[in-house]
């Protein structure tokens, strides 16, 4: 199910069935990868995990609403200054600017809106998000900026000095 990407730099790709019971797996994979890299503080890992959950929820709901059998794809990339996760669906292309605005929270009408909170959450939780809709689907690319990857040899050198 997971494989190392070829030709696009180091990365990991995971395809999950577009069903709600698999969303926990997507979160687990992202938080485990982020933890193992030791490049983000725990609270930032949680923010990324939450953003991934929001993007996967939207992808799963798009597929379910249109009876699309295809899987939802999660791509993980690492750069010198960043961790990146992209969630890709096969829906008709989602335009985040078309989302209706919510009334202010102090307006009683606000309680009529149970949905539409995911995109604002993603925008706040990650350092950068790009929505790339096309007729073949939407890719939601989320970036967390962070320090460089830990150099295992440097870690060993530190331990040798202790």
């Amino acid at each position, binding site marked *: 199910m997971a494989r190392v990407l070829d030709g696009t730099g180091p990365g990991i790709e995971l395809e999950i069935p577009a069903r709600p019971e698999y969303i926990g797996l997507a979160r687990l994979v992202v938080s485990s990868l982020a933890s193992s890299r030791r490049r983000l503080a725990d609270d930032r890992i949680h923010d990324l995990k*939450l953003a991934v959950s*929001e993007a996967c*929820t939207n992808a799963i709901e798009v597929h379910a609403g249109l009876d699309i059998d295809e899987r939802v794809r999660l791509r993980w990339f690492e750069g010198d200054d960043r961790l990146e996760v992209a969630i890709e669906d096969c829906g008709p292309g989602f335009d985040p600017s078309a989302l209706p605005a919510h009334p202010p*929270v*102090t307006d009683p009408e606000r*309680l009529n809106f149970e*949905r539409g909170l995911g995109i*604002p*959450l993603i925008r706040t*939780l990650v350092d950068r998000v790009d929505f790339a809709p096309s007729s073949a689907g939407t890719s939601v690319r989320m970036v967390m900026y962070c320090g460089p990857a830990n150099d295992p040899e440097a870690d060993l050198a530190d331990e040798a000095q202790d």
Partner: protein
Amino acid sequence: MELGLDVSEHGTATVLAVKGEVDVYTAPRLRERLVELVNQGKRSIVIDLEGVEFLDSTGLGVLVGGLKRLRTNDGELSLVCTQHRILRVFEITGLTKVFAIHDSVDAATAVPK
């Protein structure tokens, strides 16, 4: 991933203690339980989120729906939450201004109705 939903009575209030992860998979069960409680005539409901390990906007939506359902039935819904990662989701979405959020079940159930 199972969602724990334990109901207990504290004076005139009904406490629904939620345990586990609330997301698009588990949120429908939380919604069903809340609707059941309102249909049973419960009008003062406290949702205890201290056992929740993860909550996303699907869970928030269910809580907003529960609050609306109770208010239209002359009831009230309040929350118990002290975990900063869960509170953060309410803060980002502005919902800290919509929900009464307490530090403990005792504090939530002691509030004058």
